[in-house]
């Protein structure tokens, strides 16, 4: 087949050929999804599609019939009619009737999609450049979800895995057969949270809260992406939902809380410079390297360099402040809620001691933890 030839040519040219998902690669249609709403959306989609096909067959049929039979080379003589109001009225009214018929089920589905009442679980979704934050509002649990595809796969230095660019470090875990309300907003620019299997796509807009809802019927892992252009790494902020049974969901909630406490306890012990540097590098690559680049060189005019920068080599308090609280009016976010005390301490230490920056001093997790606790005056600003 044609595509095999294309692939052969591709590999002949020394290009990477990816075969892991070749079977799924020729997907041509919308997913029916796993919710009642997504199924009715799919049905609407197929209905309007077949209507279009039918109209196309008629119109193009007449057209090609004319092209074939009414050509000069076959001796066709031009007739001289050039209007027939009745015919025109009829062929305008028929599509209108078809579309009115379409509008009825479309309205019903839309009304259903807008009914966010009686939700059993509220999840707030906040878009950040370029990650998602999920808050389980009723359970005092929140975390960030970052792309977990390694950089060497993106830069073609390693083979791409099955879920290339559609995998994250922490899944959004949701219970099945539960009405879940999503409250969407953004921390910086407009993002759009989209999971095709749920037929939910809603913009996350700074300063506004949008609502959407879903009831997932089947357990499973459902993947989506940010749909609204949100800057450089718009293509690298996927959504991954893990739908589990209600019992598993409760168990997961309990485990997540225990893990959070362990994390807080870790901040209180003493860390060596090497330990911090090691963890700092990982955190840096995950949270900072998208803008400041893995080598700390930044992008002139857009993202400042950290290598040799006045902030990274200057007063440590100022450095901590900019990482924790961001810099308003720029793309530099406040990381105080995004990273744990240990991670913050590690990444600041790393920035002050990597790529030829060598201050040799460590920022301790305990020091950062004190800044993060709301009881201190500084944190209230």
């Amino acid at each position, binding site marked *: 087949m044609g*595509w095999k030839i*294309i692939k052969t040519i*591709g590999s002949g040219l020394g290009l*990477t050929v*990816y075969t*892991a*998902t070749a079977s*799924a*690669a020729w997907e*041509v*249609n919308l997913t029916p999804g796993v919710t009642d709403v997504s199924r009715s959306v799919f049905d609407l*989609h197929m209905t*309007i599609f077949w209507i*279009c096909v039918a*109209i*196309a067959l008629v*119109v*193009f049929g*007449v*057209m090609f019939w*004319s*092209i074939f039979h*009414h050509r*000069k080379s076959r001796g066709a003589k*031009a007739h*001289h009619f*050039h*209007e027939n*109001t009745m015919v*025109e009225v009829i062929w*305008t009214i028929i599509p*209108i009737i078809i579309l009115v018929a*379409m*509008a009825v089920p*479309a309205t019903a589905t*839309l009304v259903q999609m*807008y009914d966010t009442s009686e939700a059993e679980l509220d999840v707030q979704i906040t878009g950040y450049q370029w990650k998602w934050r999920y808050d389980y509002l009723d359970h005092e649990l929140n975390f960030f979800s970052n792309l977990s595809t390694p950089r060497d*796969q993106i*830069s073609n230095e390693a083979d*791409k895995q099955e*879920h*290339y*660019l559609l995998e994250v470090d922490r899944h959004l875990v949701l219970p099945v057969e539960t009405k879940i309300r999503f409250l969407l907003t953004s921390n910086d*620019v*407009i993002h759009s949270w989209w999971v*095709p299997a749920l037929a939910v*796509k809603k913009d996350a*807009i*700074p*300063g*506004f809260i949008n609502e959407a809802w879903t009831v997932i019927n089947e357990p499973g892992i459902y993947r989506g992406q940010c*749909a609204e*252009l949100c*800057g450089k790494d*718009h*293509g690298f902020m996927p959504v991954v939902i893990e739908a589990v049974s209600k019992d598993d969901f409760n168990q997961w909630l309990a485990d997540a809380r225990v893990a959070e406490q362990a994390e807080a306890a870790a901040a209180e012990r003493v860390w060596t410079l090497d330990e911090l540097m090691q963890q700092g590098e990982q955190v840096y690559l995950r949270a900072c390297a998208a803008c400041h680049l893995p080598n700390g060189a930044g992008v*002139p*005019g*857009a993202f400042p360099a950290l290598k040799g920068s006045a902030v990274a080599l200057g007063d440590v308090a100022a450095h901590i402040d900019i990482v924790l609280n961001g810099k308003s009016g720029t*793309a530099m976010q406040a990381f105080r809620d995004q990273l744990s005390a240990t991670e913050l301490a590690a990444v600041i230490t790393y920035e002050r001691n990597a790529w030829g920056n060598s201050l040799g001093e460590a920022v301790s997790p305990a020091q950062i933890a004190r800044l993060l606790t709301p009881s201190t005056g500084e944190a209230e600003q």
Partner: protein
Amino acid sequence: MSTLDTTLHADAHEHHGPAKGMGRWLFTTNHKDIGSMYLWFSLLMFFVGGCMALMIRAELFQPGLQLIEPGFFNQMTTMHGLIMVFGAVMPAFVGLANWMVPMMIGAPDMALPRMNNWSFWILPFAFAMLISTLFMEGGAPNFGWTFYAPLSTTYAPPSVTYFIFAIHMMGISSIMGAINIIATILNMRAPGMTMMKLPLFCWTWLITAFLLIAVMPVLAGVVTMMLMDIHFGTSFFDAGGGGDPVLFQHVFWFFGHPEVYIMILPAFGIISQIIPTFARKRLFGYASMVYATASIAVLSFLVWAHHMFTVGIPLAGELFFMYATMLIAVPTGVKVFNWVATMFRGSMTFETPMLFALAFVVLFTIGGFSGLMLAIAPVDFQYHDTYFVVAHFHYVLVPGAIFSIMAGVYYWLPKWTGHMLDERMGKLHFWLSFIGVNITFFPMHFIGLAGMPRRIPDYALQFADFNMVASIGAFLFGLSQLIFLWNVIACVRGGRKAEARAWEGAEGLEWEIPSPAPYHTFATPPQLPESLR
């Protein structure tokens, strides 16, 4: 300065021919010279924007980042869109109008020739400024051609200010061009050329010109609000200061939706000139075409929020814009039936312009069908901001607007140059373009439905194969445009001598004057030919 002007003026009138050297092009007030400049400029921009498109498609040939960085990728998508919309499609239509409108209505020139010169010469400066941003620190605009705030304000590169002024200049140029076309059509028609005898190309352009005057100030307004937000401390679009990022989208699409019609109504006009010529039969339902075009223009102001179904407008708003969109889509779409009915029982031949016109009818209709699907709001949640949308508007704009421009150029080239086109090369160009355009854009429907968002530099593996196909198609389409360039140059340089009526079935005043059209035509008002009386 005034002496220079008067000498040139006197010169032109004494010799009735073009001035010599660069001065001819810099100071010309001749509608044919200005039309040619518009067309060459738009061809240049078409190739510049096309190279950017090829850079995008080259990066998307395979998953992974191979050629360009994501930041630069965004600059490419943005500049490709801006250059194609404002630099290629719109100036090409203005160029065709400049050449053809005075000749179709029997006028000696445009009504406001000096302004005509100015509205062209603004453009090279506007685009030089826009393109220069590519070489600035922080790079060119990278927020998409729709430049949604706050990505285009608070988070924009410093070059956004140059972008804003470039948009202002393009707007001024468009408004002046539009005023000129309205003044010409309303005031300069030859005796007997009443409004109801106006060729459809003039009608659609007249209505387009009113749309331009109505919406270009809105675009200027929205970029000015951005400018204020960026430099003067206002917060129109900054939620932190009490503004509203969604306001931007409302204002932008209030411009943007009529803009869509600005790019397609003149195309309707061109196709309505070409199909009757090669079917040797009068246009079916001329009256309906005129009335429908007018109503499309009015109603195009009432559907803008169908671009914004996912921003969270209230349910009543969603329903309003869904119903309004579906209602106006129908009379727009069924105009296709009129073209088909024109061909029906005609006596057709298939020269290059006709081939492009036929491809327009089929492929534009496919774009119309996907538009109808997008109008259904609950389903639009799945289509919105995916490659399905990219496929939709490229079907409407490439085999729609751009094929109509090429059809028009091939149709009127004999009149402009006095030479017939080499049909063999014309058909080669057509078939390569037709195949290329479909290989490029048809698979985009599939990858969009399968879930690939637009404007991403890298994608998941399940989208890989169709992306590779689309990229191959894009290079085929792009390279075959070199044949277009070749054809135009070859036709200017020589070829079989064209008669006054270059095509057997052509009707209209422009075919009553010799080919090539003399530098000055209709210095005295013409007698309408028998067929138009």
